[in-house]
């Protein structure tokens, strides 16, 4: 199982959230997510600890990583500057303006029917239809990362870094990477 992400400043209490750019979701019905590895119909949520992974426009590709128990000091030094308590998020620089201007809606979900993923800490699923308990609107996503202590960076192309991260001893999550620009061609400048 992927180790949980580190705590962040201003984290708040544990809760389960569905993050969306849609401002008026009244009811969540189980569905087959495009990116899921299962055909099961589910409602998906993320817990408070892992919310920063979703402080992005929905389709923004991002490469995120942090230290876990098996992470070596060499990898912590190379990728995290030795700061095991921090998460690093990297996006393509072409997404910077959209990140700056995005507004998201956080739907707090009733927790009773959810179970945590056995593979990925922080991801929760339910087979039941449900109504959210409340909806929060958030913007200034760059500011949220700054306050949280996320080490947010930009790259023109995520793939060289991503290939190094997944070959390392870090914990990682790549989201919407299918939307990223293609890998640089060998020999291209």
């Amino acid at each position, binding site marked *: 199982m992927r180790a949980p992400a580190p705590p962040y400043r201003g984290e*708040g209490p544990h809760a389960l959230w569905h993050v969306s750019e849609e401002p008026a979701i009244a009811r969540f019905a189980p569905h087959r997510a495009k990116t899921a590895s299962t055909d099961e119909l589910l409602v998906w949520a993320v817990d408070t600890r892992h919310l920063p992974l979703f402080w992005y426009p929905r389709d923004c590709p991002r490469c995120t990583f942090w230290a876990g128990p098996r992470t070596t000091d060499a990898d912590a030094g190379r990728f995290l500057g030795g700061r095991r308590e921090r998460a690093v998020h990297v996006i393509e620089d072409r997404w910077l303006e959209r990140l700056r201007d995005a507004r998201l809606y956080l739907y707090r979900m009733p927790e009773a029917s959810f179970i945590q993923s056995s593979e990925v800490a922080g991801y929760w699923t339910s087979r039941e239809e449900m109504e959210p308990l409340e909806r929060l609107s958030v913007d200034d996503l*760059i500011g949220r990362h*700054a306050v949280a202590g996320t080490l*947010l960076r930009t790259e023109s192309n995520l793939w060289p870094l991503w290939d190094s991260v997944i070959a390392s001893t870090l914990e990682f999550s790549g989201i919407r990477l299918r939307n990223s620009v293609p890998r640089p061609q060998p020999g291209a400048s």
Partner: protein
Amino acid sequence: MVEGPQVALDGAPRPEFGAILEQAREGVIDYRLDAPKHEFLSYLVHMRGQLLHGTASPELDEVRPMPATDYEVRTLEAVFATSDGIWPLFFATLDRARAGSLWNGCYHLRRGSVLHRYYFFFTEADPHDDTIWRDGVVYVLPREPFARTWIPNEWVSAEPVRAQARLAVSPSDFPFKHRVKQYDPRLSLMGNLRRFSR
């Protein structure tokens, strides 16, 4: 956060900035250019690799370690410096005894060769009270012997650092003076951030 002027990292040379640094007598920069001082300070950071330290103390030959409390309420005794041209103006132009605790941050994100700079600034006291502002100095420091902290654009040295030059500044040189907000202890960190961004 508020976005500052973008910096073109491959921009045209600014020989006038280099000249006034070279002409500094006994380290005192006689700034008479029309360009805002934060442009000059940004040039020092991004084109010459210097670090900056803002303080009210006007005549330091060397900047000595001082105790400071970070976000996790840990006290660290060090010389603090920044690799940003606007952030030190906040520290240089505040009367710390009157302004109370400060909560602030600076984030740099690159798009190609353009640097985007984002900031937030809070004071414990009312920032509309002019008595919390005062004239100050930004000290120009070498990167050696500083090391980065986990806070973006913050650097620390456990040893005193000899200043290479110093620039007198006033509250009017700080471009975000009118964007500073009073920290509301009833709100969460994120709640205060939302107030700043509105």
